[in-house]
């Protein structure tokens, strides 16, 4: 029973719980058992909150006995990226500088998860402060891809993606700044969504790049991902950039899974040189499949997407250089060298020297430079102009089609250590995902098969206009249903890493 429970989707668990076939306590225990069994190899979790999870599960079971069901996710376990503040659990952001920090408040999304009755299993590993595409930048060790333990799980939300792919949790949340949900979802063979910027609250999400950071859901199915999307999203008065509008009908769209008559644009600029042949092959098949399901497919050019990566690597580091200034040893987190011989400035400098990893330092330095007097216009200012051009590309494209599609990543999961010393190669992992972050619109990655070269999963990315997140689920669910039918089983069952 225990291993069966971990194989079930969130929707199935929800149904089993409501029928009384199982209890939240059983479900939670099953997932804690799975974590105990496999996380030594995967290292998806930085902190497992077993006692709290079981306490909460018992409470949910009590409530259900009395006829109270908080939401469809009541009693369903979930893993939370260690960038969301959580009372009663540490929040490290994968950084030494926050080692042992117990936040005194919950992120809005943490609160919404708790209110929904979802059982928070613990906090997942991530690239330090969400900077990276492999989870190798965590100060607490690398996470391994359940498809092949020698491969990266993607990043920065690699821990969340790996936890879902390793059946340690049916659902997880992450954040997407340049692709940090979609890229790990793609390389771990699961579903991940970057909602519209402002569609999900950033309050209590430790900031990397404020104008880009977007919390979003992971699941093994499109429907599960939609269920979580609906629970975690919606207006938050604590976040000024939060959109005051109803959450798009993502669950209904996932259930309908109908693309007949939809206009789908293939972004020609997101293919070609640098893309793995196996990735392009699976992507092309997925597009053909959508066409066979009744979608009208055309090619669309977004000529400024080629400048997205350089613009991103000016804007994101600029914002991060300011956002990460607060880690100064004065109020919380690490304090190094406070032995009475150093003044405050020296303690600040030494703490930041010891507390931040190489990639974080690289970006702080990049951003500090890009914002400095005399360089601002040429770097930060110019990057913002490029951002406007990319938004216009999207606007023009969405004038012709309902959604855009591309591969989620240029390649499948690469080997741990392979790109660790080559930042540029690492940055290319986010080539396809960055445009949607810069534009602030919505995008999803859904598995579309395994690359012939390495047998690793490939993601199909679907992009939709801001606040049209439901279109993502309509297309992704249709593709998922058709592809799963073709494969004869969920793709993840082919994962052989564990």
């Amino acid at each position, binding site marked *: 029973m225990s291993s069966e429970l971990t194989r079930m989707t969130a929707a199935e668990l929800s149904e089993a719980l409501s029928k009384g076939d199982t209890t939240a306590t059983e479900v939670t225990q099953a997932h804690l058992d799975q974590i105990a069994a496999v996380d030594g190899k995967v290292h998806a979790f930085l902190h497992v909150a077993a006692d709290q999870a079981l306490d909460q599960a018992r409470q949910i079971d009590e409530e259900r006995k009395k006829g109270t069901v908080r939401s469809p996710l009541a009693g369903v376990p979930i893993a939370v990226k260690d960038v*969301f*503040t959580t009372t009663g659990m540490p*929040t490290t*952001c994968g950084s030494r500088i*926050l080692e042992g*920090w117990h*936040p*005194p*408040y919950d*992120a809005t999304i943490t609160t919404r998860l708790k209110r929904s009755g979802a059982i928070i299993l613990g906090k997942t590993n991530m690239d330090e402060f969400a900077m990276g595409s492999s989870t190798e930048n965590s100060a607490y060790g690398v996470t391994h891809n359940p498809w092949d333990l020698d491969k990266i799980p993607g990043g920065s939300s690699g821990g969340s993606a790996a936890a879902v792919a390793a059946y340690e949790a049916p659902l997880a949340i992450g954040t997407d700044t340049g692709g940090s949900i979609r890229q790990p979802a793609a390389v771990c063979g699961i579903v991940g969504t970057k909602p519209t910027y402002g569609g999900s609250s*950033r*309050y*209590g*999400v*430790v*900031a990397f*790049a*404020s*104008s880009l950071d977007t919390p979003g859901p992971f699941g093994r199915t499109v429907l599960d991902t939609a269920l979580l999307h609906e629970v975690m999203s919606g207006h938050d*008065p*604590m*976040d*000024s*950039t939060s959109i005051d509008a109803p959450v798009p009908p993502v669950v209904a769209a996932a259930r309908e899974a109908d693309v007949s008559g939809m206009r789908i644009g293939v972004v020609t600029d997101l293919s070609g040189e640098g893309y793995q042949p196996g990735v392009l092959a699976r992507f092309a098949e997925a597009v053909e499949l959508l066409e066979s399901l009744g979608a009208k497919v055309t090619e669309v050019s977004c000529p400024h997407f080629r400048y997205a990566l350089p613009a991103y690597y000016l804007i994101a580091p*600029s*914002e991060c*250089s*300011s956002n990460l*200034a*607060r*880690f*100064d040893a*004065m*109020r*919380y987190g690490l304090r190094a060298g406070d032995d009475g011989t150093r*003044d*405050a*400035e020296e303690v*600040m400098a030494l703490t930041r020297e010891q507390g931040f990893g190489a990639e974080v330092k690289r970006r702080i330095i990049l951003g*500090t430079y890009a*914002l*400095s*007097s005399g360089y*601002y216009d040429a770097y*930060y200012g110019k990057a913002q102009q490029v951002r406007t051009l990319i938004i216009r590309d999207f606007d023009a494209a969405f004038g012709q089609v309902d959604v855009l599609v591309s591969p989620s990543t240029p390649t499948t999961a690469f080997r741990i250590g392979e790109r660790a010393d080559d930042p540029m190669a690492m940055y290319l992992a986010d080539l396809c995902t960055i445009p949607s972050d810069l534009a602030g619109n919505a995008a999803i990655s859904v598995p579309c098969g395994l690359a012939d070269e390495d047998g690793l999963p490939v993601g199909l990315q679907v992009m939709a206009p801001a606040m049209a997140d439901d279109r993502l689920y309509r297309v992704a669910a249709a593709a998922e249903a058709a592809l799963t039918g073709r494969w004869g089983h969920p793709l993840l069952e082919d994962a052989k890493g564990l």
Partner: protein
Amino acid sequence: MTETLVPFAEATERYEPVIGLETHVELGTRTKMFCGCTTGFGAEPNSQVCPVCLGLPGSLPVINVKSIEYTIRIGLALNCQIASWCRFARKNYFYPDMPKDFQISQYDEPLCTDGYLDVEVDGETVRIGIERVHLEEDTGKSLHVGGATGRIHGAEYSLVDYNRAGIPLVEIVTKPVPGTGAGAPVVARAYVTELRDLLRSLGVSDVRMEEGSLRCDVNTSIAPRGATAWGTRTETKNVNSLRSVERAVYFEIERQAAVLDAGGRIVQETRHFHEDSGTTTSGRSKEEAQDYRYFPEPDLVPVAPDAEWVEQLRAALPEAPSARRARLRAEWDLSESDMTALSNAGALDLVAGTVTAGASPADARKWWLGELARRANEAAQELKDLPITPAQVARVAALVTAGTLNDKLARQVIDAVLAGEGGPDEVVKARNLAVVSDDAALTAAVDDAIAASPDVVARIRDGKLNAAGVLVGAVMKATRGQADAARVRELILERLS
């Protein structure tokens, strides 16, 4: 180190000063600028804080609309243009009392620009141009313990109180003010005074310089008379009383003149003002200034005040203090210097309130600047903090006018009101203090006095009527001051005629 100075008169004879003022005003909003924490002064350190104003990881700011409203009202009162769209910016620098190590401020898109404030100096109007009015968050407050200077360098340790962090702070920057010559220090003081009164009339701040809710940076430069270019300016920080504003400009002119006379050059720098000596000393040099790396605050959406709302705010502005002063001076028939005395004593509103409550302007002024000013002074209190209301003062004046009280009794009543014994009428009743003008009650006392002083009676009968004062005094003493002295005198003279 003793600074070489050129005497002020000599300095301003040869050099022309240009001044400029940057004034920081803590707004009196109930809650902070980006969170719901309260803003009261003097609370237990770090008791008015939350994740937002402590800048805890993950927290986000949400603008307090009241702070925008107050800033726009200040801008309108200073005759500024109000931006139809503007943004906040991050000013990045590391300092322990800045919770986020950046300050949310405004940079190239301030809320209000290009206004002016007219200031009266010696009966003449000086128009001070306003460059900009912008809104930002205040920092925490550091207390550096140990070390000689009270500054962070040399301190043994420092304590930080974040209660102040995130209180909305408005910065009002003047355009450079040339052409004031030897009047520069007085003009600077008059500007801050006028600004303070204006802000107080708007009700947007309690503008207490001693509590730091109004803080001034004073920019001063000098150039040889006849020179076409202005000199290099220094910025004297945290000049926190009206008198200090005047002294800081005065001192900088004397100091800079000495530097230039000696063939030196003025370094663009911030300087610290010393209240005790009235001098300034060098602080951080602007030439090695920090680069604040301003960029638009991505956690906030742009502010776009609705034009109709701005017009509503404009229509609801109170009368400007200068206009009000002119009107009241005419209504009260006071001289300019009387009016200045009232302003300086902080008695204008109190007198106005007393007049509104029915007293004559002369009586109102007499009580507030006389007896009550003396009491406030004795108690080291602000006049307005005395526990007596303008209405109560008006009632005392009315009782005197009606003859129920004489001045001496009136002072007793005021004492009792200040002592918390109740309103004037209650005190009169409780202490039975009314003037006795009933002849029957007075006659006996008058007869006693006449009988007790035959020699005085003799002198009066000789025509020395002034001697009657002695008998009046005796009657007053016998009646514990409650007799109507004029009536007593009449009765004495009637008896002896």
